[in-house]
């Protein structure tokens, strides 16, 4: 058990980094503009990330498992570590990075090293979500923006009341966003360990958690730790630069980004859509940062802006190639060292 914990530290580190960086995508605008206090935001985020991870985390994680079924602890350790290193190094150098894309590159690196075939259909499914995520976020933002304008004009609500409701809605939308982030992104943090680790089921508050859920609980706690210890700094620096927007816009951005994360994570929603013969989306971890950029662009389009910041889109597209490629190479090299230098079985 202790040995197992040692191996999942790379995943926990990845979780911490995700919590530190991605919390700003959910509550960054609200906290940096002082609409919501950081303590409240961090508490809500921590609680809902863990709930989302434990309850709805398996869907998106399952798809990653299909991309590469890593069966050895040391292999999973290296895959998560490579992704974590790529995310950390790229973030430090101000490059666009997504944990989801790093982990995909890392897993494919493991597939190459272990000479396992990479399921092209699964890979294509995942790649399609990288484009779909910001695109859908933009569509949601446009719909929400138009509805918001219509409602505020219809309701003729006083400024003070409007701000009260916006603040309340930001708390609710932020909690929903945290739940969706936990559900969607726990796959990045702990997905690679699900085949390699077996924990004893545990009971928490009349709820029995199976082995995967225990893993997700640990991952969720790591993300929450990242939120509490480091995200404030990110919210006030990075978050501020990205999102100098008004409180109503912040609400629309958070809501549309959260909806996208939820769509790519909710199994029950997928079952509902499939059973009603409606088109459904693959359950895959997606990037909350890119959902956020998509939402901001969506609002811009809805307001009739003709000058879209193509540099930002370009940065996303560069990230689509640079992140997984770096993670793939690092994962491959690290697996080689783990196997040949440290004499560990990695596949």
């Amino acid at each position, binding site marked *: 058990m202790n040995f197992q914990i040692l191996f999942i530290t790379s995943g926990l580190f990845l979780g911490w980094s995700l919590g530190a960086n991605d919390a700003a995508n959910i509550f960054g605008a609200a906290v940096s503009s*002082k609409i919501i206090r950081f303590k409240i935001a961090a508490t809500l985020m921590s609680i809902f990330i863990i709930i989302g991870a434990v309850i709805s985390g398996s869907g998106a994680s399952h798809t990653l498992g299909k991309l590469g079924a890593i069966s050895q602890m040391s292999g999973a350790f290296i895959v998560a570590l490579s992704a974590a290193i790529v995310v950390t190094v790229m973030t430090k150098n101000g490059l666009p990075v997504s944990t989801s894309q790093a982990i995909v590159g890392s897993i494919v690196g493991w597939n190459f090293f272990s000479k396992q075939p990479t399921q092209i259909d699964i890979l294509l499914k995942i790649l399609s979500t990288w484009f779909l995520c910001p695109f859908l976020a933009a569509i949601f933002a446009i719909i929400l923006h138009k509805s918001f304008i219509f409602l505020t004009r219809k309701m*003729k609500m*006083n*400024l003070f009341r409007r701000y009260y409701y916006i603040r309340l809605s930001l708390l609710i939308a932020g909690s929903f966003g945290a739940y969706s982030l936990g559900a969607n992104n726990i796959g990045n943090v702990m997905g690679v360990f699900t085949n390699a680790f077996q924990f004893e089921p545990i009971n928490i508050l009349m709820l029995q958690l199976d082995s995967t859920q225990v893993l997700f609980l640990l991952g969720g706690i790591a993300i929450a730790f990242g939120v509490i210890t480091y995200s404030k700094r990110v919210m006030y620096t990075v978050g501020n630069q990205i999102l100098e927007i*008004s409180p109503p816009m912040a609400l629309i951005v958070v809501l549309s980004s959260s909806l996208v994360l939820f769509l790519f994570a909710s199994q029950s929603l997928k079952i509902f859509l499939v059973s009603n013969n409606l088109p459904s989306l693959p359950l895959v971890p997606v990037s909350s940062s890119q959902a956020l950029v998509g939402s901001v662009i969506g609002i811009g389009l809805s307001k009739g802006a003709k000058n879209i910041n193509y540099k930002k889109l370009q940065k996303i597209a560069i990230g689509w190639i640079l992140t997984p490629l770096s993670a793939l190479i690092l994962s491959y090299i690290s697996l080689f060292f783990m196997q040949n230098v440290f004499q560990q079985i990695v596949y």
Partner: protein
Amino acid sequence: MNSFFKKSVDLNLKIENFLEIISDISLLFDQVINDYLDENTEKYEEKIKKIIILESDADTLEREIKIMLYKYTLVPNLRGDILSLVKDLDNISDMIEETSKEFLIQKPKFPKVLHNQIRKICDETIKCVDELRYATRSFFNEVHLINDHISKIKFYEHSIDEMEDEINTEIFNGQIINDLATKIQLENFITKIGNVSDEAQRISDKLAIFSIKREV
């Protein structure tokens, strides 16, 4: 929640009352000028007293609004903007009160030929302040309507500026006054009246920025 709504209604009522007072002060100012020009001394003195009382009421309300805004856990950025708006609106009532008092103290003698133009400049000033009241109300309730009022304020302010120039040209070049001291004194009064609409326009520019900041 109920307590919030009560506070929100209270604050809104106070701001509404504050705007009403400023509007009343500007209406009284117009009457003061008309009575002054008609040499109804008793009437204008009485109205100036009313302006002083109303201005003091506006100061009290301004303080109460400030305290309420601080007590509220409002978004700091919004609180700052409202505080600055209330302070600026109070400047308008201060300016009107000060000008009215100057009429009482200095009793300037305007030549009869200028009376109509002075009455007109006062009428336009009232319209300008009224539009400022509507613009402020829009900011709090229907922000998408604010630009209609802001453009009217600009229109009135421009027209007042033109009238101000005409009157001052008449004072200095029209051979109706010989004494330079009187010329400067009258010009000073016309400028003081014109300053009210200048201030209204300055506030409306601020309002335009405030509304852009809160755009959906």
